[in-house]
């Protein structure tokens, strides 16, 4: 802190600031980015070839939509390759994502060959990508409906758990009497997995959806409370001292000093809570609630429709990952003042 500050240094920083920080934006040449993008187009062509080769043994109804899908991927990849010529930010994105897309397409090829091609895996349980894609399209209405129900249940339970967790975490972190009485409760009740309460919750509550929301809230509440409380109680004393000498009262100390100082820790709690909420959601839907993606998977499995099972799993992956990404974006927005936050 006692580094000496020299005139030129100020001028330098000043300039860098007013002109915008010199972000290291790599200049990506058109040819280089095309080289990293070409594998995507090539992988799509391989996909098409593999599918054409395999599909001769499958009923055409199963394979038509997958063909259409692959042809559109090919079309889009060619259009993108052409569009990047005059669009530097797209070029940068393509250069970064090209290898990932190509690898994903090759995974599809491998999957197709292992299942429909060589039939190495027992068939009803492991359908080909074409079959899964067909199930996805055929059952889209029910899948959409299930996703919607899952979303409502998840967000309801998560919001409830976050609000409860923030309130109890702030109280426990700030006030020592509350900490004295609250901590033992937290230590005993908190570590029980929320799913362990399911049998009890089903008996006690009149509505399965309601008790599922309560269980998700419970699963979220524990980590959020824990990390909020530790964040608040670890607020640097000097920040509180500064605020006191500036004339701050208790409200300011809690809401404008301790809570902002605890935000990095609170966000860790929010992420842990989110993970716990996914788990609790799926388990609750599988065993009790009669809607949602968890229910859909169990239901499709009951009818031995494994194409639908995989379709639902794919939707679930996209669904959870999107929600996670949204939370990361919120975190990045809220914690801009921190240096070196991890990007998702």
């Amino acid at each position: 802190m006692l580094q000496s500050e020299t005139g030129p240094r100020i001028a330098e920083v000043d300039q860098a600031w007013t002109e915008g920080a010199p972000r290291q934006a790599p200049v990506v040449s058109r040819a280089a980015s095309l080289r990293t993008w070409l594998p995507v187009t090539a992988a799509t062509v391989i996909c098409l070839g593999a599918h054409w080769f395999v599909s001769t043994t499958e009923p055409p109804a199963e394979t038509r939509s997958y063909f259409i899908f692959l042809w559109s991927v090919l079309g889009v990849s060619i259009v993108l390759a052409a569009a990047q010529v005059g669009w530097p930010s797209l070029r940068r994105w393509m250069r970064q994502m090209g290898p990932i897309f190509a690898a994903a397409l090759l995974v599809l090829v491998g999957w197709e060959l292992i299942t429909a091609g060589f039939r190495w895996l027992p068939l009803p349980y492991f359908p080909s990508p074409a079959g899964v894609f067909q199930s996805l399209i055929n059952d889209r209405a029910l899948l959409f409906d299930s996703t919607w129900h899952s979303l409502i249940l998840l967000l309801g339970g998560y919001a409830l758990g976050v609000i409860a967790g923030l309130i109890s975490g702030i109280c426990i972190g700030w006030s020592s009497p509350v900490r004295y009485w609250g901590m033992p409760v937290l230590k005993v009740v908190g570590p029980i997995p929320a799913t362990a309460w399911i049998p009890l919750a089903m008996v006690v509550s009149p509505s399965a959806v309601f008790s599922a929301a309560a269980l998700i809230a419970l699963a979220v509440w524990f980590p959020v409370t824990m990390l909020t409380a530790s964040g608040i109680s670890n607020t640097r004393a000097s920040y509180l001292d500064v605020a006191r000498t500036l004339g701050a009262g208790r409200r300011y100390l809690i809401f404008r000093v301790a809570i902002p100082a605890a935000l990095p820790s609170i966000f860790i709690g929010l992420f842990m809570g989110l993970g716990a909420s996914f788990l609790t959601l799926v388990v609750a839907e599988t065993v009790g609630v009669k809607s949602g993606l968890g229910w859909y998977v169990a239901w499709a499995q009951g009818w031995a429709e494994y194409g639908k099972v995989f379709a639902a799993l794919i939707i679930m992956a996209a669904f959870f990952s999107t929600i996670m990404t949204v939370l990361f974006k919120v975190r990045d927005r809220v914690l801009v003042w921190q240096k070196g936050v991890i990007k998702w």
Partner: protein
Amino acid sequence: MVAESAMEASSLRIREVRKSFPAPDDPATRRLALDGISLSLAAGELVSLVGPSGCGKSTLLRLIAGLDSPDSGELMVGAESIVGPNAERGLVFQDPNLFPWLTVRRNIEAGLAARHVLHENRHEVDEFMRLVGLESFADAYPHHLSGGMAQRVALARALINHPKVLLLDEPLGALDAFTRMRMQDEVLRLWQARRTTMLLVTHDIDEAIYMSDRIVIMTQRPGRIERTIPVALRRPRDRSSADFLQLRGEILELLHFAGNAVAI
């Protein structure tokens, strides 16, 4: 004590203050950090506090700010004893301690926001940002600032409350010589305009002579006041005048500067 004017209300009296801390190696025993400090500052007086590292200067400032309480002794501002922190006694800490989640502008506003008077006094925020020369950094977060810039923000943040008593703990220590002299003049200008009572901790003898009415020298830990030296030079002072240099020589002599391992 009959007619106590508004000026007197900002005088500072410290009587026989002692403060001990648990010893770091043996928490059962306590070690004295301040041993019977008595010091009075008239309203509007600017006093410098000089002493070796660890002699309890920051501890004394925390006591005056009301952040800690003494083991024994009495601290009073005007006719009231100090019982806790208050916006009337501003403290610029040795570390800037800016709130990292607030921009420069919001850090400077913090005192006004904490006292719910931001709305009426918003115009002052720009004034104080100009004062410390950080207008172009208004929307920067503290981690973008150098140590010296951060210290300037901390200074503005304390000044905006117009405290009656301002406690400065090496506020200019991290600045380069040029900025430092400019800030000394700015602090003096504010002091003269407001007649704030100021207690300034510094390691820089020139700064102490240039700024203060009196210089208080503390001893090695446990801190006691060794002596008080009045600075009778006329303001504005000239750092290269013969009187200045003579006083400087005397003070260095007093501190046994050559023989003593005291880090000033």
